[in-house]
């Protein structure tokens, strides 16, 4: 199991990477900065599981909150609106 690096409230940046394979980080948040909402626990790495490997060590999984205005510059709706996405730690860097 990999130790959790980020605490709730921390600013994080999602890696802007485009590896092939079974990746659970949606395209629309790659390269964006958000805030850790909570740690969900640790889970086997889905990118490894999809290759028939064991996905170990387990990776911390977070809920990361993004402002809709940051995700879609032309977003129509309140500036308060947010989207929360589950992202594995190896996709996050301190921002």
């Amino acid at each position: 199991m990999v130790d959790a690096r980020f605490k709730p409230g921390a600013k994080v940046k999602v890696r802007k990477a485009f590896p092939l394979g079974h990746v659970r980080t949606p395209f629309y948040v790659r390269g964006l900065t958000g805030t850790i909402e909570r740690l969900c626990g640790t889970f086997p790495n889905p990118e490894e599981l999809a290759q028939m490997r064991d996905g170990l060590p387990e990776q911390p999984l977070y809920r990361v909150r993004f402002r809709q205005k940051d995700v879609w510059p032309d977003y129509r709706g309140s500036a308060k609106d947010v989207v929360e996405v589950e992202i594995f730690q190896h996709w996050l860097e301190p921002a």
Partner: protein
Amino acid sequence: MKDKGKYQPLSYFQLMEVTLRELLTEKGLLSEERITQEVETMRNRGYERGARVVARAWLDPAFKTRLLQNGTQACEELGLEIPGLKLLVVENTREVHNTIVCTLCSCYPRVLLGLPPDWYKSRNYRSRMVREPRAVLKEFGLRVPEKVQIRIHDSSADMRYMVLPMRPAGTAAWSEERLAGLVNRDCLLGVAVPKGPND
């Protein structure tokens, strides 16, 4: 004219499913009966258990606190069988409205709420609910005031989500069962809100 139908060969995954199923039954590890039973159980599972969880949370503040802290444990406490489910319950308030979507595929808390509706799996819902949630909610007949924050939950990995809606006014003395009757599937996904006697 004789209708020949639309014959299509099995897809890769359909073929894999048939092969695996036949191997398992040939080896005696599973019976056809058992598989049929399990499929029926899946089909018959509805959202009612989710509605019951909501009604309990409305009536019991301590349970509600536990439900928001650890959705899985709180459901197990009610005796619900939810094997493997990692449940996160998100609460609607006067300030925040929550809605669930899975943009990558169609992750859904099936073991608690049953099979997802077709629209939940559609490309239209999955792409537009993150991009223009207020417009999509309006199409469902739900107008969320501008001052209320919309919080979209993209079920992108291992957790599954359920919305805890606000209890409608005018239901003060209602029983758990009667309250549960106000909560439908759409309320649990956040594309609708429960209607009370005054609405």
